[in-house]
């Protein structure tokens, strides 16, 4: 058996890598296992890079507020450019119903002290010049939200975590968890066995499979989304635009212009396409392009460069599953990020470290109420 580690993290992705960084810097010896060849190769690299704190509940809001601090301060504090851009988020409304729903949510968000306001159609046309004004009733705008490159960020976290002492083993698939007296004693992979004090399951799409190895079940189901990126052009609009109007075949879609000048976009198929299917389909482009060009005609001459398909590891209520397991005492859940693993990751990494070191704060307790592993999954998140 390999050497003992205080913590083994399964999954070197959006959650596992920043968790390893935080753990290593807290003096906890961490080993990260991943079945793929390098960090962020499952869902992290599929994320389009949006980062917002403007959620609808305390847990996600607090965790993402901390993530934004980490992302925004990274270059200054750590030296690497991770493509952070404080470009904000916006949810334009094209119907009275939508306006009402968004404004009601804003009240909740203001209650949590979030910087979000309603802008008029004219103001919105200054933020997103050329956006369709036909039926536009205004938009939310949260200037404190932003974006970064998931690819650069995960690698920056990776190199810094290794420098801080975290260890990684890639191309190793976890095949079983050896339990002893109600605890995970070691992790067995196709290449070896590693003893651990505690275990964090941050395995994303594979989260449910890993949980089963410990005799646990978590309702995490990968849900397919397709995304794409354009050529870079000079900056021409500000915030992430999220169009939440459903249409036949698709629910919402969203796009923003990243720090390179490229527009990145993604659509949510409706009904959902479940399972892991990474092959591109012919449906995506006509569907998303039509919606985007109708909303923002100026995009018509922007050229698409590359597309891909990835998954949101979804839970029934749209909230992640994070926290210490009630039955297996040294097993910590960090799965079901519902497509928000990238923005939750850095804040969650610190929270997971506090769980590992038994230093949870009162705030943490409140956050974890949103993410309870044993909950009944009855609610539905207002803004998935």
């Amino acid at each position, binding site marked *: 058996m390999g050497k003992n580690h205080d913590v083994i993290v399964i999954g070197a992705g959006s959650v596992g890598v920043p968790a390893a960084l935080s753990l290593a810097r807290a003096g906890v010896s961490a080993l990260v296992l991943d079945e793929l*060849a*390098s*960090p*962020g*190769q499952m869902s992290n*690299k599929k994320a389009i890079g949006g980062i917002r704190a403007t959620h609808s509940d305390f847990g996600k809001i607090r965790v993402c507020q901390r993530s934004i601090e980490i992302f925004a301060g990274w270059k200054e504090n750590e030296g690497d450019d991770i493509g952070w851009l404080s470009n904000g988020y916006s949810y334009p409304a094209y119907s009275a119903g939508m306006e009402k729903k968004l404004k009601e949510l804003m009240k909740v968000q203001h209650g949590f002290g979030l910087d979000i306001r309603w802008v008029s159609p004219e103001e919105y046309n200054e933020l997103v*010049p*050329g956006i*369709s004004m036909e039926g536009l009733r205004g938009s939310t705008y949260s200037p404190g939200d932003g974006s970064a490159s998931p*690819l*650069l960020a*995960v*690698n920056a976290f990776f*190199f810094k975590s290794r420098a801080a002492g975290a260890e990684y083993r*890639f191309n190793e698939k976890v095949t079983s968890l050896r339990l002893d007296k109600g605890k995970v004693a070691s992790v067995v992979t196709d290449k070896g066995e590693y003893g651990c004090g505690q275990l964090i399951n941050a395995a994303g799409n594979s989260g449910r499979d890993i949980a089963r190895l410990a005799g646990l079940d978590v309702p995490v189901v990968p849900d397919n989304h397709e995304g794409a990126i*354009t*050529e*870079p*052009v*000079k900056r*021409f609009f500000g915030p992430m635009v999220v169009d939440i109007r459903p249409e036949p075949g698709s629910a919402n879609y969203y796009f923003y212009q990243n720090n390179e*000048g490229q527009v990145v976009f993604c659509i949510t198929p409706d009904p959902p396409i479940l399972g892991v*299917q990474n*092959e*591109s*389909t*012919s*449906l995506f*482009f*006509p569907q998303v*392009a*039509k919606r*985007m*060009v*109708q909303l923002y*005609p*100026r*995009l*018509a*001459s*922007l*050229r*698409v*460069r*590359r*597309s*891909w398909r990835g998954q949101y590891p979804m839970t029934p209520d749209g909230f992640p599953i994070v926290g210490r397991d009630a039955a297996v005492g040294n097993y910590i859940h960090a799965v079901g990020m519902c497509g928000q693993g990238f923005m939750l990751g850095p804040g969650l990494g610190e929270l997971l470290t506090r769980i590992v070191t038994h230093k949870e704060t009162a705030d943490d307790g409140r956050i974890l109420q949103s993410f309870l592993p044993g909950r009944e999954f009855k609610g539905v998140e207002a803004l998935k």
Partner: protein
Amino acid sequence: MSEQQRILEHPVLPVTPGETVTFYWNNEPVEGRKGEALSSALIAAGIAAFGRNAHDHAPQGIFCANGQCSKCLVIADGKPVKSCMTPLREGMKVNAADDLPELPAGGGTGEAAGIGAVPEVEVDALVIGAGPAGLSAAVELGRLGIATLLVDDKHEPGGKLVLQTHKFFGSVEDSQAGTRGIRIGRKLAEQVAADPHVTVWPDSTVLYVYSDRKVGILRDGKYALVSPKVILNAAGAREKSLVFPGNHLIGVYGAGAFQTLVNRDLVRPSRRLFIVGGGNVGLIAGYHAIQAGITVVGLAEALPECGGYKVHADKLKRLGVPIFTSHTVLSANGGERVESVTIARVDERFRPVPGTEQTFACDTLLVAVGLDPIAEFTAQAQAAGLPVFSAGDAAEIAEASSAMFNGRIAGLAVARALGAKVEEIPAAWQAKAEQLKSHPGKVEPQVFPEAEEGVMPVIHCLQEIPCNPCSTVCPTESIRMEGDPLLGLPRYDGRCIGCAKCVLVCPGLAVTLVDYRRDREMPIVTVPYEMSHVPLAAGDKVHGVDIDGNELGEFEVAALQQNRENLTRLVRLRVPRALAKRVVSFRLQDQAVVQPLPAAQIAADADNQAMACLCERVPAAEVRRLIRSGVTDINQIKAITRAGMGACGGKSCDTLIRSIFRQEGVDPGKIVPGTRRPLFVEVPLGTLAGAPGAGEGE
């Protein structure tokens, strides 16, 4: 601006004037030819820098001339377009694409209103690529009555045959040996056009074979989805590149790109050219350059012998081009564009030997270090569970003669997969297809005929290659192939009537005719000559050379004979008896023009000046640093450096990054390949939304 860089006279290609139109380059009026590639109009006007790279702000110009990369980006009528794929129109307002282009504010509801359904088409067979393989396959499919869609991203069918001004190797019956590639392409295209079962979509680029078995195609600026029952991938190949300091400078091209400019578009992007790579592609490109009136300063080949046919190398040497075997390119030097190239000898492990550096003044460096099959459509179709075949370079890099042959075979295989009653593919066809791919054999010593009377051909073809038209054209059947009827060396056995058909037909220009009948002491040697743009007249003195280009003396031109059908001239030289059989041709380039500069120029900070990704300008040093830190996943290199995320879609950096892995001694089995994603080329969002006319070229 004048059209100073236009080729106005060419020994093989017809030069037609075309309709002159005026367009604007950075607000200055410029003249070009209506419908020609915008990039070529710019080059003809002497414009080499099309814009500045957004990453390092260095000027960039045309690179692939093939719609693959985006280095020829310009702003045409307000939109960023690839100038090599955009036909020139009267009054076009073209501006340099400096740094990031500005997205036009316009668009407005007009374009949005144009959104429509994406047309969907069903076909039995989809053939991707109308080059030698695709056209040959389509001929067979049409003959068998199969509904076939043949798509090609260029306006003219023919693929690289369009660029091949030289005569073909192979055999007359199978691959029209002795005929020039351009003519073969035209013949095949006419055959396909006349077939009612074959629909041809020109200007149509395949973007992706999706997992739902639909093929996304950008057809003349509009998006279409095609559902085929079977695919034949005959998309050809892309050129490999090399990591060396200055590989991003204006004036570094692939050989195919260069041939597109000089042979298709008849523009001259260079005055002085250096070539790296002694395969057939590099050797032929050198020959074409000289035909286009460009000085070829030299050619470097890393191996001890050129990998291409000896007859091709010999042609270049005889024209006066030095060939440096066991040499590599150390750097392309220059501020914004290539001003010189430095080469050095390499040791047996291909490491440059210090002290052997030589620098040659030139404005262009051709990189001809091999081709990679465009295999992704095959892989995509396989992943989607769609029956797929491949032919030509997309299957395996080989000569066009072989591509035509295996294209026919693949056509029959596609027909059979569709359930058509197809005759058994003859075993002899398979054997022939293999034979046409043969690599050149070893060089045999030259044996001259002993007789010094009458008239006879002297054959300077000393290496087994798949080629035999000399034996087919001889009216007295006096030239036969020794051993294999295609691969064997030709031998003359003594019943020559002096018709010179063998001299005219030989693609290697390796047959002369020595005629002792009038003057035994001063026989007339007939040599082939394909440089008619260089004036030559009876009575002129020329520097006669032997097979390897060594000078034999000054000889007088007795007569000239132009062959209208063949375009090869026959030049009759009066040569002293002792030398007559050794003369093969005469030198064209004065040796003074190919001398190195007095001092070699050695690049400083080489690894930071050598790019591993030309689009995103990622220095080799950055990739090397990651490899040394233990990175083996090309996806991680891409994530960190952006190598492979550029406009070309990662088409060229893969081989460059792998070459750095190799230099660092990483086991190739440990390298994790980069993931390939749609799309094959960039496409406007409006086009994908079904809008007409949002694409380039509209």
